[in-house]
Structures are given as C-alpha cells and as structure tokens.
C-alpha cells in the first residue's frame, strides 16, 4: 500500500466512523412535521357539496351574537346562476340566512328576477367567510392596532381598542368585515376562536349537514383539510390581490369573485 492511499483511506474511515448512527436514519418529511406540528388554521369549502340551506349562516349568527335581522353577517352564502346567453346572476338574500327557497333571484333595488329553468346552464352556491389572509390588508390599515393576526393565523378585532373608523371594512377586498350594530366596532369572522382553541369545530362547519365547510391545521400533514389542500384541485379568491388567503375552495368557477 502506498503512503498516499493509506492516508486517503484513513481519512475516509475516520470521517465515516465519526458520523453518528442517528444521522444516517432516513426520516419521512411528513413524520418530522407530524412530530412537531405548527399551527396554522385554514378553511376548506367544497362548493359541490353546498346546497344553499343557510344553516351555517344561522348557526354563525346565533353563536357569535350577530342580530339575526341585521343585514350584516360574518359568513354568507352566494348563489350563482349562469344562463345560455352568458348572463350571470348572483344573489344572497339576507346572506342566505334563511336558505335559498325561491327560484327568483333577489337583485336588490332591481327587484326579483325569475330565470326560466331551461335557460340555466350552471347554478351553484358559494359559502363565503373571512379568508384569514397571510397578508391581511385590513390589519395593515388599522390606525390604532385594534385588529391583528394571532400566531396561529387568525385575524381578530379588539373590541375594547377599536375606534370604529371603518378603514378595515374598506380595506378588505372580500367584504368580510362590517360594523357591528350592537357593539359599535368593526366585526368579522373569528374562525370561532373560542371553539377551535378548545378542540371544537367552528359553528358553521358543525351546522353544515353536507360537510361543505371544514376547518383544519394547514401545517399538519395528517390533517384532512391540509391533505385536501395539498392533493386536490383547490382555488382561492382574488389571488391577484396578493393577500394569500387561508380559505380554500373546491370547485371554484372563474365567475366567482
């Protein structure tokens, strides 16, 4: 053996022997994440499953003390009807609080519009709620630090600190915020923070008989919602705003805004 080879193989052997066995253990990325799951709340809406019953809206309003007869709501359901001529009708009477029971579309000031059954090509329901964006524009515009995002990604309003200026209501591109008629501060969906932080489900997701609404931890690869977001074809609303929403939609149509 030449001296050069001896030195070379010695170096290889020594460096190999110093590696501990645990460093050579092969781990699945999923296992590592699951052992140390971070928390990032996310929401998944399946628009195929939604039938427009409005039980989610009713449950949300009662759970979160939003007056039933006030025309504001933390979550709402929109109906989209598209016709052969390419016309798009959208309505959401009282946010869908009492469900969609009539074939007539509520076009507000324009009155009720009846669309002939035979003209309809597509028709479906889209439940909406706060997207709890990763870059929430509503939080950026608050002049007093009354609205904020928690470490687990939920956007909340401090009712004792809010001055009711309304910038955040204007700032939200999704119209998810409103002025609370009783508390007199800005108000919005909290992902039922009082329920999910105690291991419960959101009131809307629980009330949905069809599993069209689900909440989960996007950082936990074993979570059914995280799995669906990873493996299925999901969309988000108004991607062009760069808000990075955490509410994902299955079966989103290009006409849904």
């Amino acid at each position, binding site marked *: 053996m030449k001296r050069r080879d001896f030195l070379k193989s010695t170096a290889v052997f020594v460096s190999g022997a110093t590696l501990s066995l645990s460093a050579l253990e092969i781990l699945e990325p999923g296992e590592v994440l699951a052992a140390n799951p971070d928390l990032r709340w996310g929401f998944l809406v399946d*628009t*195929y*499953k*939604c*039938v*427009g*019953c*409005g*039980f989610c809206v*009713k*449950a949300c309003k*009662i*759970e*979160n003390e939003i007056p039933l007869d006030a025309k504001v709501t933390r979550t709402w359901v929109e109906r989209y009807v598209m016709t052969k001529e390419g016309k798009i009708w959208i309505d959401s009477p009282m946010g869908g609080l*009492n*469900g*969609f*029971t*009539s*074939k007539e579309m509520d076009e507000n000031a324009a009155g009720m519009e009846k669309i002939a*059954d035979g003209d*309809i*090509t*597509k*028709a*479906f*329901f889209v439940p909406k709620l706060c997207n709890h964006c990763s*870059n*929430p524009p509503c*939080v*950026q515009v608050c002049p007093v*630090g*009354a*609205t*904020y*995002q*928690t*470490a687990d990604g939920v956007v*909340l309003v*401090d*009712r*004792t*600190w809010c001055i009711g200026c309304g910038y955040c209501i204007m700032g939200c591109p999704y119209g998810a915020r409103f002025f609370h008629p009783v508390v007199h501060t800005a108000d919005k969906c*909290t992902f039922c*923070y*009082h*329920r999910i*932080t*105690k291991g*419960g*489900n959101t*009131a809307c997701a*629980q*009330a949905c*008989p*069809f599993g*069209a609404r689900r909440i989960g931890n996007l950082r936990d690869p074993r979570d059914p919602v995280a799995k669906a977001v990873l493996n299925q074809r999901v969309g988000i609303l108004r991607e062009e705003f760069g808000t990075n929403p955490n509410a994902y939609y299955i*079966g989103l*149509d290009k006409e849904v805004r």
Partner: protein
Amino acid sequence: MVIAIVVLILVVRAFYVPSDFGIQARGYTFGFHRLGNEQDWKSFPSKYKNRDYCKDCHEEKVSSLATSKHSIIQCENCHGAAFNHPEDPEKLAINRSRDLCIRCHSQLVTPSSGRSAIPGIDPATHNPDTACVECHNPHHPNLEDM
C-alpha cells in the same frame, strides 16, 4: 409649551395603554396589538354544543336516528342551540316550520350543486297550507314509511 404637550401625551399614554400592548408574534405589520385580547376571544361563550352533547342524556333518541337520511343534520339545527340546556333554557324551542324544511327541499334548478340530488318540491303548490310534519316524520323522512 410644545414640550409640555409632548410630556402630557407621554404620561397619558403610559397610564392608558395596557402593558401587554405591543408587537406580538406576527410582527409590527400584522401583530401590533393587546395580547390579552386573544384570551378575551378564547373565553367568548359558546352557544352551540353538538350531537355528542345531546347524546349524553338523549342517547336512545340520537342512536335511533343513526340510520335515518336526516342523521347528517345536527340536532341543534332544528331543535335550536343548546346554550346551557338543561339548566338554561330548560326546554328548547323546536322549529317545525315549513321554512326550515324548504331550506333544502324547495326544488331549484342547480345542476352544478349537490342541491339537485336532494328530493324537492315546489312550496307554492305542494300542500301550501299544511305543515310538512303533518305528513312527514322529520326524524325518519323516508316516503315508504309514511
């Protein structure tokens, strides 16, 4: 004068702004808030329980619905939110109205939604003056059992 105003503002601020107000987990842009408010929201009172809560006392009723097509509906959707039942309220107000049933069973033309798979009627022509529960059992709605 100006200095006095500045000092006054700083003194007021020191007393008025809570000590837990500041930059939290999400940084200055998204996390500038009073930390205690997160706890305020966590302790917001819950109104809706769930089927398991009902089952604790009404076990027979809940299990008898397991095979029903309506078993996917939470008890509280029709029977009302539990709040602190059975203490307060002692009795829940059950919604037996037509309006409740037609939330799903009013027939619409919705080809791209699960709604089209649900049996539906036209509420204006299907026995408009009769409550649905006069003929249909809301817990076991199968037409064969009528």
